[in-house]
Structure formats: C-alpha cells, structure tokens
C-alpha cells in the first residue's frame, strides 16, 4: 500500500508536466523567496522543509548534500517539483538559495544558483527520479550517504 501511495504521488507530480501553459494564469510570484516557498513548495515539502517520511523527501537533508556536486545540482533543478513549478527561473533560484542559506544544516562552500542555471536545467525534466536520486547518493562519500536512497 505504501508503495502504491508513493507511486500515486509520483504520478501526480508527473501530471504537472503537462501544465506549463497554465503557469501564466496563476497568481504573480512574490519578490520574497520565503513567501514563494510557502505558496509554491510548502504544500508538499512542509513549512519546515522536512517532507514526509517515505513520501516526500526532506529538503533539510538532501539540499546541503546535493548542492555541492555538479550532478546533485543538476538533479535539484530537474526534479518534477522544480522543473514544473509555476515560479520563474529567477524566483526558483532565489527560493533555492534562500532555503540553503536558512537551513540548520551547515553547508560550507556552496555556489548560489542563478536564473540561467535553472532555465537550462528545467528544459529537460527528470523521468527516472528515484533512480537518479539513488545514483547521486551512491556517489557521495560513505560518511554522507543518507539511508533513504530507496525511499523516494
């Protein structure tokens, strides 16, 4: 049942793929990244960005790990929630940078995202999200490998 529910969630996120046209009809995004996070991301990832165990990944865990490698950054910009978001490239870059900067987990030496990074990567949304995620985690140093590689 849990497997089924997780599949349903991915299916739902996949449905967002067809919705890019509707983006312009929605409310304008704010100039404040914190507010954009609440209105465009927190519905699934939660106000504390901790997600839902086995259902929605915790950004508090994965962002600091993934932002340090090229493949991790590419993944972050191509996951369904980011690539299909109604937020603009600039708005998305600002939300990601704000999130990383405000996380409790220290993230030394990371490079901020810019709108061009987001624009380029979101043109090719990920199809095999779980597989890509598992691969990136397996490339991390052993001490940083999180135990939920097969959960999402």
């Amino acid at each position, binding site marked *: 049942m849990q497997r089924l529910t997780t599949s349903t969630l991915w299916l739902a996120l996949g449905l*967002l793929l*067809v919705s890019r046209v509707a983006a312009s009809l929605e409310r304008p995004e704010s100039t404040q990244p914190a507010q954009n996070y609440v209105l*465009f991301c927190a519905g699934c990832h939660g106000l504390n960005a901790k997600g839902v165990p086995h259902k929605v990944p915790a950004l508090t865990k994965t962002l600091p790990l993934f932002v340090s490698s090229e493949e991790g950054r590419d993944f972050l910009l191509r996951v369904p929630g980011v690539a299909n978001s109604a937020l603009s490239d600039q708005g998305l870059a600002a939300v990601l940078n704000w999130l990383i900067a405000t996380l409790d987990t220290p993230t030394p030496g990371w490079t901020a995202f810019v709108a061009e990074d987001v624009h380029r990567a979101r043109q090719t949304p990920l199809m095999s999200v779980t597989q890509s995620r598992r691969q990136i985690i397996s490339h991390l140093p052993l001490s940083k490998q999180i135990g939920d590689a097969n959960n999402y």
Partner: protein
Amino acid sequence: MQQRLDRLLERASRHVAQRTSRRGFLGLFGAALTGATLLPLLPVSRGGQAMAAEPTGANAVDDPASCDYWKYCAIDGFLCACCGGTSSSCPPGTTPSPITWIGTCHNPADGRDYMVSYNDCCGKTSCGACSCNRNEGEKPMYRLSLNNDANWCMANDNPNYHCSVSVLLGVAGQ
C-alpha cells in the same frame, strides 16, 4: 420426503452445472476483487457537489461553521468546525494531512490577503456535515498543487477523508 429432497437438490445442481462455468465464476470474482482494490484510488466525491453549499456572498460572515467565512475562499469539503474540530484543527480521532495545497484569501475585515493552508483531516469516514465548495484561485487537477478536488489524505497511513480545515500561515505581501 428424503428422496424428493434428493431429487430436488440433484435437479438444482445439474441446472447450475449446465448453465454456469467455473471459469465464469472465477472471472466475476476476479473482476469484483479488482474493482474493490481500485475503488479507493478514484478521486474523492466531497459530499455531492450539486448539494454543496455555495457562498451567498451577501455579507461578510465571521462564523467558522458558515461556508461564507472569509478564510474558506477555496475550500472544498466538509467543514471541520461542524465535525467536532475547529476551522483550523482536526476533530479527535483524525490526523491532518502532511501534504496539502496552499493559497491566499482576502480578509474583508482588514483588507489584507492571507496565506491559507487547506489541510484535509484523515483517518475516519466522511463527516457529512456542512459541505462547502468554494474555488477562488483553485486550478484543475493537472495543476495538482492548487487543486481542491484531490484527496490530500493520500500521504496519510489511513487515507480516508473526513473533513477540511483552513490554517492561516501569515499575511501575503508583495
């Protein structure tokens, strides 16, 4: 008497054997099993939309049990305030959905827009009281994060939908 009963049962058994097949029964049973499994995955009918209350829009109401209450501007479901909970908390025995959709509502009392989280309360069968269907800013299912027809209990251990709440998250600025 016993012989007559035997003959009757024999005739009935032969009748069934000649007119039905074991495969036919298996097919029917299989279809029923599949149907019963798929039924919970269908979109939730939130209490019959034809009968759902629509906002009258007459006067600004400050009653959490009324569909006209300002912060219900995009709610679709049974109001938890009528189901043993409040406008922002779930009734006992139910659990708020950890995933939800978040929108904004205009508060006529102070003229400001507020961010509102529409959580479903899950774990019991439908409450059935105070059905309310308002759709300001709501989007079709293909924009799932802004849709109020989805069963947001889908990520709960018990995905039964009971009622909906509107939780204020703060003032929406520019």
